[in-house]
C-alpha cells in the first residue's frame, strides 16, 4: 500500500561542503542517507528521517541541516498534522499506535509555574563554596519515635533498613532490552561514582554488573523477568513496579527482535520470543495482596533492604499511596504524566495519568494528614529536567527524584521518540550490537557523573541562597515555593501560596 504519510523532516545537504565521505550513510540507522554508486553521490531519502540529528552532529564538514517539514495543510486547530498522520498510520496498519519517550503534549508543566525563595536582608544566605552543604538523603521507613538507652546513650529503637544517597537524584528504571548493556553499565558506574542509585527496570541484571549491586535498585514487575535469589541479593533496594507514568495500567511487550542472546540470558527467556509483561501482577489485586508481595520480598531478602513500590500517578494516587505505606512499602515511587518509556501505546501515553507535581503534593499532604509520612520515603519521576525541578520537587515533599530522559539526553539522546523501533541511532534504546557500540561506557559514565555533579552544585547554590545548609531543611517546606499564573484550586492542591502573597 502506498503510504500517504509525508516526510516529517527536510534534509538539506550543502553540496559545497559535502565531501561525499558517507559518514552520514553509516551513522543513520533509519537508512535516510545512501550512496548512489551510478552518480557517485551521497543522497537522502527524506521520508526516513526521524530528526535525531545523529548525522548532523557527526558530519565532519557541517554539510547537513535537518529541519521540520513545514507541511502546509490548511490551518485547523482541531485537525492538526499529528492527528491526521496518526489516522493515516492506523489506516495503513490497523494497529495500536506505538511511541517512545514521555508525553509530548501541551499539558501544563507546573514546575514552570513554581518559583523558589531566597534570603534577603532578614536572614543571611550561605555561600556553599565556603561552607558545608548537605545533600545526603536516607531512603527507607523512619520510626515514629526513637528511644535512647539512657545508660549507654545508644539507640534502643530498631531502625528499618536505610540506603544513603549522596545526591537526591537517581537513575530511573530502564530495562536491559529496552536500553543496551553499555547504557546499563554507564548508569551503574555513574551512580557508583556519584554515590546514588540506578535501577535495572524489568529485564534482569547482567552478570557483569553485579559488582555495582550496592548502587543498584532491582525491579520486580508483572513479568518477573530475570528475578531470582541472586538478583534480589545483589541489590541495595528492591522495587515492585505496579505502573509507569507513560503507560498507567498497561503491561509491556518487548518484541522478539529485541530479545538477543544476551537479553535472553538476563531476562531468562528463550532468544527471539516476545517478553510479555501482563497488565497487572496476577498476585496483586488489592492493597492486601500488595502487602503480601512486599513481605514476600522482605522475607526473600531477610528484611535487610528497603522495598520500594512504584505506581503511575493517577486520580486516586493519594489514597493508593496511603494503602501502599500500610502494605509495608519503605519507599513510594510516583511516576507522572510525562514519565518516559521505551515503547507505549501513544493513546495511553498522551492521555492517561496526572501531572507529577499534583500527585506529589497530594500524596505528601495525605501522608502527613494520616501521620504516616515518616513511614515511607517518597520518590518522584516523570519529566524532571534540571536541578530547579529537583529543588521544587523536594520542596513539594519528595525525598528524591528519578531521572530517565535527562540521563539519556546526557548520553546523546535527542528525544526523537523512536525508542520503540529499536533502531536508535545514538545506540541507546536498541539491542543491535552494531548500534550499541556507539555508547562507550567510559564516556557514558563520565557524561552522567558530570550531569549529577553539575546538578549537585546547583542544588547547593539554591539551598545556600535560601539560607539553609541541608536538603532536609527544604524537604516538604512548601513555604519556599510560590505559584505564578495558577488558579486557586491549583494552588490549594499544590499547597503553595501565590507569588506576592
Amino acid at each position, binding site marked *: 500500500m502506498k503510504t500517504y504519510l509525508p516526510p516529517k523532516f527536510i534534509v538539506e545537504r550543502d553540496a559545497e561542503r559535502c565531501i561525499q565521505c558517507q559518514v552520514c550513510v553509516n551513522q543513520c540507522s533509519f537508512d535516510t542517507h545512501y550512496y548512489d554508486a551510478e552518480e557517485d553521490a551521497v543522497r537522502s531519502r527524506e521520508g526516513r528521517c526521524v530528526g535525531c540529528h545523529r548525522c548532523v552532529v557527526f558530519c565532519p564538514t557541517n554539510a547537513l541541516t535537518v529541519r521540520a517539514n513545514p507541511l502546509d495543510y490548511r490551518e485547523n486547530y482541531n485537525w492538526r498534522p499529528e492527528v491526521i498522520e496518526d489516522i493515516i498510520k492506523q489506516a495503513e*496498519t490497523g494497529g495500536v*499506535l506505538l511511541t517512545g519517550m514521555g508525553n509530548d503534549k501541551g499539558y501544563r508543566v507546573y514546575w514552570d509555574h513554581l518559583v523558589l525563595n531566597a534570603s534577603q536582608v532578614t536572614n543571611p544566605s550561605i555561600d556553599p563554596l565556603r561552607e558545608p552543604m548537605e545533600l545526603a538523603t536516607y531512603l527507607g521507613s523512619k520510626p515514629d519515635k526513637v528511644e535512647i538507652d539512657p545508660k549507654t546513650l545508644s539507640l534502643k529503637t530498631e531502625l528499618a533498613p536505610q540506603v544513603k544517597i549522596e545526591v537526591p537524584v537517581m537513575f530511573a528504571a530502564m530495562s536491559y532490552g529496552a536500553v543496551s548493556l553499555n547504557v546499563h553499565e554507564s548508569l551503574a558506574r555513574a551512580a557508583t561514582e556519584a554515590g546514588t542509585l540506578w535501577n535495572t527496570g524489568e529485564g534482569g541484571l547482567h552478570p557483569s554488573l553485579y559488582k555495582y549491586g550496592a548502587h543498584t535498585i532491582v525491579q520486580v514487575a508483572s513479568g518477573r523477568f530475570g528475578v531470582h535469589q541472586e538478583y534480589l541479593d545483589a541489590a541495595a533496594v528492591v522495587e515492585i513496579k505496579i505502573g509507569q507514568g507513560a503507560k498507567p495500567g498497561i503491561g509491556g511487550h518487548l518484541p522478539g527482535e529485541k530479545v538477543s542472546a544476551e537479553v535472553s540470558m538476563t531476562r531468562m527467556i528463550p532468544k527471539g520470543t516476545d517478553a510479555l509483561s501482563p497488565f497487572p501482577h496476577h498476585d496483586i489485586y488489592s492493597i492486601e495482596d500488595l502487602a503480601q508481595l512486599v513481605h514476600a520480598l522482605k522475607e526473600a531478602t531477610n528484611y535487610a533492604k528497603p522495598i520500594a513500590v512504584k505506581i503511575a500517578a493517577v486520580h486516586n494516587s493519594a489514597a493508593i499511596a496511603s494503602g501502599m505505606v500500610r502494605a509495608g512499602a519503605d519507599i513510594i515511587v510516583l511516576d507522572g504524566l510525562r514519565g518516559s518509556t521505551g515503547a507505549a501505546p501513544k493513546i495511553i501515553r498522551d492521555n492517561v495519568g496526572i501531572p507529577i507535581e499534583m500527585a506529589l503534593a497530594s500524596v505528601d499532604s495525605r501522608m502527613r494528614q494520616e501521620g504516616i509520612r515518616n513511614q515511607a520515603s517518597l520518590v518522584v519521576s516523570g519529566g524532571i529536567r534540571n536541578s530547579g525541578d529537583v529543588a521544587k520537587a523536594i520542596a513539594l515533599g519528595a525525598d528524591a527524584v528519578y531521572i530517565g530522559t535527562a540521563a539519556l539526553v546526557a548520553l546523546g539522546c535527542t528525544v526523537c521518540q523512536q525508542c520503540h523501533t529499536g533502531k536508535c541511532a545514538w545506540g541507546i534504546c536498541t539491542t543491535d550490537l552494531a548500534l550499541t557500540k556507539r555508547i562507550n561506557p567510559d564516556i557514558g559514565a563520565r557524561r552522567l557523573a558530570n550531569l549529577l555533579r553539575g546538578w549537585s552544585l546547583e542544588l547547593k547554590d539554591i539551598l545556600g541562597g535560601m539560607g539553609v545548609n541541608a536538603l532536609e531543611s527544604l524537604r516538604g517546606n512548601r513555604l519556599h515555593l510560590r505559584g505564578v499564573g495558577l488558579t486557586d484550586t491549583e494552588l490549594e492542591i499544590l499547597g503553595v501560596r501565590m507569588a506576592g502573597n
Partner: protein
Amino acid sequence: MTEKVHNETTNSIVKIDAYGLSHRELNAKLREAVSNGTQKIELRNVYGQRYIGTDLNKSVEIEIFGVPGNDLGAFMDRPRIIVRGNAQDGCGNTMNSGEIIIHGHAGDIIGLSARGGKIFVRDDVGYRAGIHMKEYQDKKPVLVIGGTAQDFFGEYMAGGVVILLGLNLKEGEHHKARFIGTGMHGGVIYMRGSVESYQLGKEVGIAELEEKDYQTLKELVGEFASYFGYDAEEILKQKFSKLFPRWLRPYGRHYAY
C-alpha cells in the same frame, strides 16, 4: 519451640511447632535450621503462615502438617516441600528450583511466573493455575494437578509443562475451566480427557500427542503417581489432549510503527 531428634540412619531432623508463630518468626527459625546444615525439617501446627521455603536456598526437605499460607515457596531455590494438607494461593510464585508436593488442594495462581522446579498437587487447584510460567535453557517448570482447575488455566504461559489429570472427575464429567491458555506463547499443557474448543483461549491450538509427549507424560505422571499412591499406567490409559501456543508472538500484528 524447636526440638532436634536423631534418626539412627539419616541426618538429624529438626521439628518445629509453628503454633502461634508469625510468618517472620517461623521463617527465621527455618533460616537458622537450614544454615546449620539441617537436611530435614518437620513443621507441625502450621496455620496459614506465609512464604514458607522462601530465602532458604539450600537442598532441604520440609514436611508441613497443617495448612501453609499464601506464597508457599515464593522465589524458592532448591528446597523440597511436602504439604500434608491443602495449600493456599500463590504457591510456587516465581519459583526458581525445588519441589512442592501437596497432598490436598491448592488455591489460585499456583506456579505464577515460575521459571523452574516441580509442583505436584493431588487434588484441585483454583483460578489461573500455571499463569505466566516460563522456561530458560535447562530450567523448565513442571506443574502436575491430579484433580481439576478453574478458569484461565495456563494463562499467558511462556514455557514449562502443565498437566491436568482430572482424576476426581466422575464418569462423564469434564473439566469446566474456560479461557484455558489465554495469551499462551510458550510451553505445553496436557489435559487428560476431552476438552471442548469453546473452553480454550484464542491463542491455543489442540493437537494429538506424539511419542515425545508420551515420554514426558510417562515420566511426570509416574512421579506424580509415586507421591500419591496412584497407578501411573492406569492414569495414562485414558486419552490426553495436547494444548500448544499457536503463535510464539501472539501480539506481533498488534501495533502500528
